[in-house]
């Protein structure tokens, strides 16, 4: 027989005005298993809490029900008090007779009857309750950063500076990401590489950071505090430990006309290459698809000229397993292209712009490379088709963005600002040139942003035309841009020498595949989903994984850096303790009855359920059952409602507790 104490609160007059608290307390005392009941003016006050503590001791209570306000208000208070009195906090519950009763009903008789009912079924709940202990999970104080762009770099440096180990994995041969490609940055027009490259070097030199470039995530196991991550280091064909970065191999490589992705295909590189001179690490990689040695077996010049003997044609991919406690995903974005898309694709290209077949229609990143001092034109604005300096440049915003008919409805956020920047850069470099901008809205929320935009319009003589472009075609060496000026209400036709499109920011290729490996969710555009749009903007719903930068949605550099530092702060919070404590309201599997249908695994929003093999002493497989990882379980209980045999049970909300409540109604 239980020994439960029931404490009915008056809440001043808030409850007692409409509920006969004395009668509720008296009736509670008559419920089987209730050993003590009383009413008190303010249960939450110190004397009230002491009353509870004293009763637990004096009456040897094994459960407590405080009938008062909403548990959302004071459950923690009373559980703490119960705990102080030696009662397991999860055996102390609250009956909500204020918000759900006295405040919403006027009739004293009805309200009192309802309050008594609430006490009755909550007592049943306490009776069937179990002592629960907080779950502790050990924490490996090492973080994995996926992506070596500005987001990953910022997060890595913050965490490493705090004294924790960091592993950074970058897919490309060098870290730096998109920011390393930019010419100048808004709204200050400072040189991107000047502020970026020192940070890249910091990463390379930081004693707490292990850097894997030209590497990808192969597999992720484990859970918060305890991830095991398998990293595939792709064969670089150059031994990083031997290479001194002298670059002789590159100067001697006979294959010199390979379009360089870093320059958006407009500059050329060799088959053994570093993507750009300031690359970190400054170790070349052999592009095997374009290397004569790999394609025909003849050449090997780079190997011959390499002093330290670092070139290794036999090198294979290697797999490394890293144990980490937290993961920051910072995989960035890619730019939309107007090319024709496969028929089944939800996103369409721009046939009206010629599907990318007109050479002098370029995207914003290509313009960045043209404008960059380290770019293929040495910073001169020269158009791709014939290398002439364009005198009329049309910039088009929202290409692919906010274009529901093309399959993307979101705003890419950075284009208004960078297009304004482009018009300025153009104006600074081609004094007799004219920039036109087709735009829908100028969106410039940010410190100094609108001022910057106004400068482009008012001082730098960019002509802004509010309207869309309907068609572009080549006429002679000009591109005819047909559009509308919706403010004036006329059709506009401009003969441009160069067109720069602000194409949409999209999730990286393979973002969905990485998400599946990590067990995090993503939206229909493959941007990763944060746990809460407002209150948990850097956390994933999967515990221990955090987001930084444009992989979560289009972002500019300041926002990206802020989010990266925020993610780093979250990681450091996690690493501040050796053990992670979690609310014990989690699901447990009864392995005796579980038959391993894994319906629970299918519905679990957290990916907390995995398969577990049960073997006999000889090692023979007896059966496969579900196993809930308490470190990952969020405690929703969807598994239990789904399990046909109820072999998985959510602590704190067991079937026994709920059935007992229903029976008592």
């Amino acid at each position, binding site marked *: 027989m239980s020994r439960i104490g029931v404490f009915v609160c008056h809440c001043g007059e808030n409850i007692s005005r409409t509920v006969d608290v004395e009668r509720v307390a008296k009736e509670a005392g008559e419920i089987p298993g209730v050993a003590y009941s009383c009413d008190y003016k303010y249960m939450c006050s110190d004397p009230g809490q002491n009353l509870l503590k004293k009763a637990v001791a004096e009456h040897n209570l094994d459960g407590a029900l405080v009938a008062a306000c909403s548990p959302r208000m004071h459950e923690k208070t009373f559980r703490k008090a119960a705990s102080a009195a030696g009662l397991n906090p999860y055996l102390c519950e609250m009956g909500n007779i204020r918000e759900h009763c006295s405040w919403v009903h006027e009739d004293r008789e009805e309200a009192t009857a309802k309050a008594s009912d609430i006490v009755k079924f909550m007592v049943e709940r306490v009776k069937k309750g179990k002592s629960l202990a907080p779950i502790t999970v050990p924490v490996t104080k090492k973080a994995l950063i996926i992506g070596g762009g500005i987001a990953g770099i910022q997060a890595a440096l913050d965490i490493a500076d705090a004294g924790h180990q960091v592993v950074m994995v970058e897919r490309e041969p060098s870290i730096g990401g998109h920011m390393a490609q930019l010419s100048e940055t808004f709204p200050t027009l400072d040189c991107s590489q000047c502020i970026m490259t020192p940070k890249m070097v910091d990463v390379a030199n930081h004693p707490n950071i292990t850097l894997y470039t030209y590497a990808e995530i192969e597999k992720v196991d484990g859970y918060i505090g305890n991830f095991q991550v398998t990293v595939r280091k792709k064969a670089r064909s150059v031994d990083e430990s031997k290479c001194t970065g002298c670059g002789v191999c590159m100067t001697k490589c006979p294959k010199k006309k390979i379009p360089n992705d870093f320059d958006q295909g407009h500059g050329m590189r060799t088959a053994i290459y570093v993507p750009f001179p300031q690359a970190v690490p400054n170790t070349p990689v052999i592009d095997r698809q374009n290397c004569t040695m790999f394609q025909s077996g003849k050449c090997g010049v780079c190997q011959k000229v390499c002093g330290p003997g670092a070139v290794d044609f036999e090198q294979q991919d290697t797999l490394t397993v890293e144990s980490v406690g937290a993961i920051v995903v910072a995989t960035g974005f890619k730019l939309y292209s107007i090319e024709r898309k496969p028929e089944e694709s939800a996103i369409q290209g721009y046939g009206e712009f010629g599907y990318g077949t007109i050479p002098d229609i370029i995207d914003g990143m290509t313009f960045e490379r043209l404008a960059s001092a380290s770019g293929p034109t040495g910073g001169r604005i020269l158009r791709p088709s014939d290398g002439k300096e364009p005198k009329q440049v049309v910039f088009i915003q929202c290409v692919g963005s906010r274009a529901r008919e093309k399959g993307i409805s979101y705003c890419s956020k950075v284009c208004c600002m960078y297009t304004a920047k482009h018009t300025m850069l153009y104006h600074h470099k081609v004094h007799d040139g004219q920039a036109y901008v087709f735009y829908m809205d100028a969106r410039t929320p940010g410190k100094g942003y609108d001022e910057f935009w106004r400068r482009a319009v008012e001082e730098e003589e960019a002509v802004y035309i509010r309207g869309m472009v309907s068609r572009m075609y080549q006429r002679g060496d000009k591109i005819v841009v047909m559009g509308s000026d919706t403010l004036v209400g006329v059709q506009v036709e401009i003969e441009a020498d160069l067109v720069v499109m602000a194409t949409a920011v999209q999730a990286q290729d393979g973002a969905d595949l990485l998400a599946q490996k990590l067990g995090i969710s993503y939206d229909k555009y493959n941007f990763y989903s944060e746990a809460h749009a407002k209150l948990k903007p850097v956390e994933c719903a999967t515990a221990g994984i955090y987001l930084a930068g444009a992989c979560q949605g289009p972002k500019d550099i300041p926002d990206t850096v802020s989010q990266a530092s925020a993610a780093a702060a979250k990681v450091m919070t996690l690493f501040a303790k050796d053990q992670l404590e979690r609310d014990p309201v989690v699901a447990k599997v009864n392995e005796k*009855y579980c038959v*391993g249908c894994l319906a629970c695994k*299918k519905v679990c929003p957290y990916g907390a359920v995995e398969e577990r093999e049960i073997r006999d002493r000889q090692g023979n497989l007896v059966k496969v059952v579900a196993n809930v990882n308490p470190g990952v379980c969020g405690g929703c209980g969807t598994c239990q409602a789904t399990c*046909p045999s109820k072999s998985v049970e959510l602590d704190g909300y067991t079937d026994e507790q709920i059935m007992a409540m229903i029976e008592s109604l």
Partner: protein
Amino acid sequence: MNAKAEKIRVASIDPSYYQAVTDAIRTEAVKLLSEEAVVAVVGYLPGRRTGTAVPGLVTTPEQAQQLIFSPACVNNLSLYLTKAKKGVLKKGKVAIIAKGCDLRALAGLMGESQVKKEDIYTIGIACAGVFGADSNRSGGLSEASIARKCRECTVHQPEGTDLLVGTLPELPQLTPLEAEELARLEALSPEERWAFWKEQFAKCIRCLACRQVCPFCYCEQCLCDKNRPQALESSPRPAGNTAWHIVRAMHLAGRCGGCAECERVCPMDIPLNLLNRRMAMELKELYDYEASTVPQEKGPLTRYQEDDDQSFIK
């Protein structure tokens, strides 16, 4: 079963069809066993009384010569891979004879990790239909003797088997009695439907044959046997019976393959498959889900879409 069926008797299915299927099964079973591609074949053997068949497990080529297929092969053999003969699969790969409806159960069991695709070899049957429970089997398979489920079968020619045997004879168009009965019940008022089911469930003696024969009732502890807490009253009283059948139908929703074995074995002739059919209809309409002969990763009630129907929610 039904006066209408008695009247419009159609010509029986030509016995040579069954012989051809039987021969094909034997040939394949002998081949599989003698090549040791499988350790056993789960199939049908002749029953002691003529014209009957019983499920059987054969392990030698000689025994395989006894395998048959006839309209009396009513059982859903997928059951023999999990509950009744759980050890079978541990010895090695097993071949199994499966009609279309049985194959859907097998696919379901694979989706629920109870059977691994690589552990079994499915010999599918292009099935013309089987006898109904308590039907007169003397005249072969005819409209009078065919099972109600077979009248509106959509998997005569199952897909996704390792081998498909038999060539379907021309099948007569039969009135869909079960669909008609469903439509009749749907057209009733809630009170009338309640009265119908009340009478049906009142008959239940809780022998649980429906559970025992169901390929999907493979739980080691059934909810109805659980007593802490007791979710379902276990004695055969109307209240508990009703709850049992509702819970059973709910647990099968989105999983049931429509073999209607539950209905066949019910000693009290409760039309249990109507419940299963009704749930299947609902899931088809709401989520465009149909039980498939090909294993699915998730069922309709273990996945969702953000834009699922919610017209019933305020």
